[in-house]
């Protein structure tokens, strides 16, 4: 008799130079990804960047035009989906309408010919894991969207798959349920130690649950790194633009430093001297005690923080994100500067 445990078999995933086109549109260009066993990574990017196609190729629901997909040491490109030993949760509610929650959850075990007694035990355990053991006899139409996705998660986990794939499972849910289920997914993933690929277009979701994030743009991985490094040291302007908010500030570069409001700030990467644009995070814009050089246009209270729009005397508009305790009034004259964090020149 087996139950869902942290010792469930998990495996690494390697995707090598996978490409995919639909007609004349190339969706993936030499897509590479290497995921360690037990790691949870996110594929993050705007709509149409190829993240769902990449996930479907990993699942075997699409065939790549070229490249390899290794699950552990085995290339599974030619292995049909039903033999890849994976679990998947879809964006749309994918529960079988004719089966109740217990039967939905047990479906994968039935396909694997697990005996009835063990099936019952493992189904109950999986439903307990997602907090729905009391709903075993309900039908999908009797559940809320969040509950349906939790059943789908239990159904995907009950077979103890080597790989869990989540295709925007939260996008159809309302904001509060999204956050709850997002945290629950992460807790379960950490508890079971299952290798997980999570597709989302929501940066907050990706930042909250991932060990690493692959930011995708036009079918390529722009950067694959930890959430913190992606945010603090984005490799490209596309990553900087997609992760968080970036202000584009024109500067003059000299000796790999940029002069920003009279402050010499180091560049993240070497660059030839001359005119450039650097990306600055709104939380790195600050007000200092000095000769005023900007005017406050407006300030919005956002709970823990405030967001203030400023215009410098040179005509630049800046957004500053700061603590809610610091109040600035419209038309107030202030002196704007930046924190001395390295910036990305584009």
């Amino acid at each position, binding site marked *: 008799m087996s139950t869902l445990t942290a010792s469930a078999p998990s495996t690494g995933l390697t995707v090598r130079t996978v490409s995919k086109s639909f007609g004349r549109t190339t969706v993936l260009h030499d897509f590479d990804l290497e995921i360690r066993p037990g790691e949870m990574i996110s594929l993050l990017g705007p709509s149409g960047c190829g993240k769902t196609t990449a996930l479907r190729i990993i699942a075997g*629901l699409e065939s790549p035009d070229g490249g390899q997909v290794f699950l552990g040491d085995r290339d599974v490109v030619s292995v*049909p*989906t*039903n033999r*890849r030993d*994976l*679990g*998947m949760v*879809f964006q*749309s509610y*994918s*529960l*079988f*309408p*004719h*089966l*109740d929650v217990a*039967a939905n*959850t*047990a*479906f*994968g075990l039935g*396909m*694997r010919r697990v005996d*009835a007694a063990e*099936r*019952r035990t493992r*189904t109950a355990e999986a439903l307990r894991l997602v907090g729905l053991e009391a709903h*075993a*006899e*309900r*039908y999908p139409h*009797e559940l*809320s*969207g969040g509950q349906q996705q939790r059943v*789908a998660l239990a*159904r995907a986990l009950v*077979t103890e798959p080597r790989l869990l*794939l989540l295709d925007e499972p939260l*996008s*159809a*849910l*309302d*904001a509060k349920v*999204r956050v709850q289920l997002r945290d629950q997914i992460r807790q379960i993933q950490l508890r079971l130690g299952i290798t997980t690929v999570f597709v989302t*277009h*929501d940066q*907050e979701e990706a930042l909250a649950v991932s060990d690493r994030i692959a930011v995708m743009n036009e079918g390529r991985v722009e950067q694959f790194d930890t959430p913190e490094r992606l945010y603090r040291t984005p490799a490209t302007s596309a990553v900087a633009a997609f992760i968080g*908010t*970036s*202000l*584009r*500030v*024109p500067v003059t570069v000299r000796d790999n430093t940029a002069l920003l409001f009279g402050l010499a700030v180091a560049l993240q990467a070497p660059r030839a001297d001359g005119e450039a644009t650097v990306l600055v995070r709104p939380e790195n814009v600050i007000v200092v005690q000095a000769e005023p050089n900007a005017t406050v246009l407006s300030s*919005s209270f956002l709970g823990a923080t405030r*967001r203030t729009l400023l215009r410098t005397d040179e*005509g*630049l*508009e*800046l957004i500053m994100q700061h603590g809610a305790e610091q109040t600035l009034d419209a038309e107030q004259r202030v002196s704007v500067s930046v924190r001395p964090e390295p910036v990305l020149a584009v």
Partner: protein
Amino acid sequence: MAVTSPAPVAPAVPSGARPRRRTAGPSRPAPRTATAVITLSLIAAAFAIPLISMLEFSLRTADGHGLDHWIALFSPETAGRYSVIWTGLGNSLILALVTVAIVLLLLAPTMLLVTLRFPRLRRTMELLCLLPLSLPAIVLVVGLVPIYLGIGRSLGTGAWTLAFAYGVTVIPYAYRAIQSNIDAVDVVTLSEAARTLGAGWLSVVLRVLVPNLRRGLLAACLISVAVVLGEFTIASLLNRSTLQTALFVVNKQDPYAAVILSLLSLAFAYVLLVLIGRVGGPRRGPRRRRDRATS
């Protein structure tokens, strides 16, 4: 020069979110009870009056009303007289079975294949499937005659061979019944979900798709049976004996028997309808015990 803020504060409602349930539209006043009763009564009368008239006609005897014609139809003494009816009924039932088999084993799998693997062919398939609606039966027969000459040489002239022609005539009706059910169920996602859970294609079809397309498939079967049992032109012009051609023959000899058999065929269709309502209806709430559901 320009300074931008490409990603402002996240909206309170995520852009990808959609309402889980549809909100109710503007409420309309319900019809008054009297209006509903009168409307339903008129509709019921429109259906009932011809049936009651047929029943009354079948019960007429020389000295009033009785079961004489009903008894005569089923009595051994007159069995030979009406044997053409039983032959025609048997042929029609066989034809109905073969036609249903064509719908379930050829049309439905093809529709699923197009939906799951070749969605771009859907419009073409729809056009092809609805085409027989635009062909009058007489035109169809003119085209079928040379084909049936070949069929007669290779498969014989048994009445069951009419099923090939009936398969064509029922396709538009069966197609609409099944397609509306396919449109109401996200068969692509359901089949993909089943595949990721380890189901092979046969299991996907039999354990996931067919149960969810049950109503459409049963409706297609009912329509097919009804069309086959009521079809006269093709059978008559291709010189095959079916229930309708037999009724035509018997009607010349004994109009009472023809009316009784028409009533029985209507009752048969009604029973089928009730069965479909029972078997194909949606399941509301948990019916099965948990141990059955998980076994």
